[in-house]
């Protein structure tokens, strides 16, 4: 049975380490915050200028001056600090963030990612995504393995305009996990969702990858 959205997020959360500073994108990535292992200190960054994101506020705590990068109202923690957008992206671009989890429309077998525009459709803009994929130490993409139309999303080469070139380290889909040890190496299939077979992944993937499954 493939992983659901929360299970995908839970699998991504297994990549967290004590003391990590992490930026989470919108959608499934946001769910990673609910899956931080107990006893582990993980600090969440919001690229609009905050380190130490707390949960959504209670109704009577809502503060228009306190939002995340998705423009949702949030709350602060004891360890929170605020800073400017320029300082925030200095932190991101400078490689100080340990991990980011974000969604994608397409991932290429060489690590390219496309997640910001579809030609012919209204372009909303890349926001901070290009900075995150260029600057953060480890880039994890979480996405459905195939599009709603059933097309593979992990493919030989991106067809959509890129967000970043050769930047992705790990892909977690509803079916499986791909990982590569460095940006010169091919992706390897390292894990399957329960009941999913390597054959099924092969059938639903057009990207080249290696198989490196460990027997359960």
């Amino acid at each position: 049975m493939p992983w659901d959205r929360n299970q995908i997020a839970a699998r991504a959360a297994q990549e967290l380490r004590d003391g990590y500073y992490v930026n989470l994108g919108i959608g499934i990535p946001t769910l990673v915050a609910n899956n931080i292992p107990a006893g582990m200190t993980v600090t969440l960054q919001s690229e609009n200028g905050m380190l130490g994101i707390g949960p959504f506020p209670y109704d009577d705590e809502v503060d228009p001056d306190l939002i995340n990068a998705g423009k949702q109202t949030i709350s602060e923690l004891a360890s929170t600090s605020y800073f400017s957008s320029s300082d925030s992206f200095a932190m991101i671009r400078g490689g100080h963030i340990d991990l980011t989890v974000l969604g994608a429309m397409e991932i290429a077998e060489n690590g390219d990612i496309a997640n910001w525009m579809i030609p012919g459709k209204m372009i909303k803009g890349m926001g901070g995504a290009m900075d995150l994929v260029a600057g953060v130490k480890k880039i994890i993409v979480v996405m459905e393995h195939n599009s709603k139309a059933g097309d593979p999303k992990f493919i030989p080469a991106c067809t959509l305009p890129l967000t970043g070139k050769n930047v992705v380290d790990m892909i977690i889909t509803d079916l499986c996990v791909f990982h590569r040890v460095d940006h010169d190496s091919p992706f390897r299939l390292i894990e399957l969702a329960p009941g999913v077979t390597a054959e099924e992944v092969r059938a639903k993937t057009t990207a080249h990858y290696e198989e490196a499954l460990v027997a359960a």
Partner: protein
Amino acid sequence: MQKLYPDAAAALDGLLFDGMTICAGGFGLCGIPERLIDAIQASGVKDLTIASNNAGIDNEGLGKLLRTRQVKKMISSYVGENKEFERQYLAGELEVEFCPQGTLAERCRAGGAGIPGFYTKTGVGTKVAEGKEVKNFDGQDYILERGIFADLAIVKAWRADESGNLQFRKTARNFNQPMATAAKICVVEVEEIVPTGSMDPDAIHLPSIYAKRMIVGAPYDKKIEFRTTRQREAA
């Protein structure tokens, strides 16, 4: 040296002209200079180029200037949630330069710091790199991005002292801090003016040198785009 003006129109007097470039602080509707935007709308100045992370929403924030067709070009990273923007953009009536959010913040910080250009990894190999110089440093490619230095910066701060020292509040700091430095003159709107000497000099976010003209814009509505909350557990 009196920096405090009676209202936004007075604070902008003599600074506006058709075809000018403006840096506008804020992220979404958080920390936007509402009063100054209103006064720019009322002035009728047009053909504006505005560097701002977002373009407001329909009839809020910079959305107001889009509605009145005063904007020729936006330099932004994200322009969703804005129907009138979409209409003008798709009709080719509005020019848009998409700029990655961190690159936009850094371009303003650089422009304000006397740096006309810098290299960044962000956008290498993407549409953003088209037409830009690529340089290799230590085996990695970077693109050259230009500093932005506008004719006018309009920003919103939380508090100012009478000398012009500024403090921002929580995530309303965002682009206001770098953009305040990135123009020939910066006009600031604040919620409150406090006596000089009442701020901790170690806790000032922007020294008085940047705020040349100020207004108190209170009371503020502070619109929220996505109100998200959680429930208190029952006692």
